């Protein structure tokens, strides 16, 4: 019987490229778990998340963070959260959360990209319909919006960096749209 070996691959094979003032990089090896909150289950889930990940439940449209596995908890709806972390959620954590949450592993469904650098906001303005000025979209905010005809989740870890989650099935075309935006900034600035 053949001896199979599986090698994990990311949708964009670890893409990382510098443009003038903008760096686009795929973030690989992260775990994404959707957490649905059952009606009336918020209090128990809040306690469980604090106990396991030391993380608070965010308001809708915002995220909270934890130093444990560099985790982000994205508040996408008032009853739906995405846990983005550098380590998969352990079996014991799943067992602890399960009674008070609907959990779905979505790690393979999304491609995660960071767009950083001094020109990142100028570049994203070309394909993102939301005003990303710090007065409107400061660090700590998250939104799900339409970019390049795709439903994309965007969050801002700090002033000079945005993280984008797009469907992994459309990773190539989404990257092409980002590259076109980044290239157009280079053309305009003449660099």
């Amino acid at each position, binding site marked *: 019987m053949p001896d199979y070996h599986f090698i994990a691959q990311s949708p964009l094979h670890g893409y990382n490229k510098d443009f003038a003032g903008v760096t686009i990089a795929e973030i690989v090896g992260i775990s994404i778990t959707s957490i649905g909150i059952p*009606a009336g289950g918020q209090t128990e889930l809040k306690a469980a998340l604090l106990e396991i990940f030391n993380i608070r439940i965010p308001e809708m449209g915002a995220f909270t963070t934890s130093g444990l596995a560099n985790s982000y908890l994205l508040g996408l709806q008032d009853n739906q959260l995405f846990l983005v972390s550098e380590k998969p959620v352990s079996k014991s954590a799943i067992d602890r959360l399960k009674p008070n949450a609907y959990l779905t592993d979505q790690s393979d469904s999304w491609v995660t990209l960071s767009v950083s650098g001094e020109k990142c906001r100028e570049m994203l303005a070309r394909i993102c319909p939301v005003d990303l000025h710090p007065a409107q979209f400061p660090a700590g905010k998250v939104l799900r919006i339409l970019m390049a005809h795709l439903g994309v989740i965007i969050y801002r870890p700090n002033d000079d960096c945005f993280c984008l989650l797009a469907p992994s099935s459309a990773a190539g075309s989404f990257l092409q749209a980002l590259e076109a935006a980044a290239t157009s900034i280079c053309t305009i600035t003449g660099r």
Partner: protein
Amino acid sequence: MIINHPVLGPCDAAEFTYLGDASLINRPDPLAKNAGEAFYEYQYLRDSPAGEHRELWYHEYGSRDWLVVTRNTLTHEITKVEMAREVARMTGRDK
């Protein structure tokens, strides 16, 4: 057209998809004696008012929330936006 999401604020209508009459929330009881007739009405019979209309919109490219939007079909003026879940609970649903 701009839809004022109850939590997120003003959102472009392009982020939404339209389903139809908000009465679709009130799915008939499939075990009731008149279930056949009730489902026929639920599925096929709709009002098509020229004026104020309550309808379901899905924030597909946004929060993924279902909203009940009260819209004037003649002017597109939106006078009320509610979370569909809350509308359903107000009618006695528990989920």
